[in-house]
């Protein structure tokens, strides 16, 4: 069984993120079991519910949400990286975190890496 884990370190307003999205979607379409995407460094910015990208720009966050819904793709954000970037993770029922994303620790990255046959970083 081909399993894939992906690490994303670029923020939603970076065009590099489109490449990551295109890759992950191509993997899902090809029937690869993508066991999770781990957002690290500036990648955690994806989960900031307050981000507003101009409507004529690429909507990276909406694209991740769609992949999450359509393929039950787990999207993890690193809590340490998130707190450094003003995404408050301590509140219960936090309405500042996009609910397509799960707040996780780095232990989740260990888990994904151990389980995946391939790990790809973007």
């Amino acid at each position, binding site marked *: 069984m081909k399993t894939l884990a992906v690490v994303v370190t670029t923020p939603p307003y970076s065009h*590099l993120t489109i490449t990551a999205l295109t*890759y992950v979607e191509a993997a899902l379409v090809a029937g*690869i079991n993508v066991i999770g995407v781990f957002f690290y460094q500036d990648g955690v910015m994806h989960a900031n519910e307050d981000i507003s990208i101009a409507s004529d720009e690429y909507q990276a966050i909406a694209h991740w949400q769609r992949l999450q819904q359509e393929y039950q793709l787990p999207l993890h954000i690193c809590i340490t990286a998130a707190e450094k970037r003003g995404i408050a993770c301590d509140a219960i029922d936090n309405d500042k975190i996009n609910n397509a994303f799960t707040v996780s620790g780095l232990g989740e990255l260990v888990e994904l890496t151990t389980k995946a046959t391939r790990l*790809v970083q973007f």
Partner: protein
Amino acid sequence: MSTLHLVRQSAFASNDFAQCLSVLDHQDSVVLMDDGCYNLKHSLMDSLIKRVDGSVNINVITSHAQARAIEIIAAVNAIEMSDVVELTFTHKKVITWQ
């Protein structure tokens, strides 16, 4: 032992591509994507093509090169993102140079 190298940076601006080449093994494959496409015109590419005698497989993502108005040279395969997914599993590991 083969590795898939995803090269995302311009060698004219950073030394990531040079670092990639220093660990490149025969049997490895290279995919130029994002600003890595600019490397098609870099002198490191000439030496790579000469060095490998065709043993290293060199690819570029068509849309990424076309968007940048970069001509794809004959020694390099023009591929799509779905091919990158396939290469991910025909190689033993992936290193991203970004």
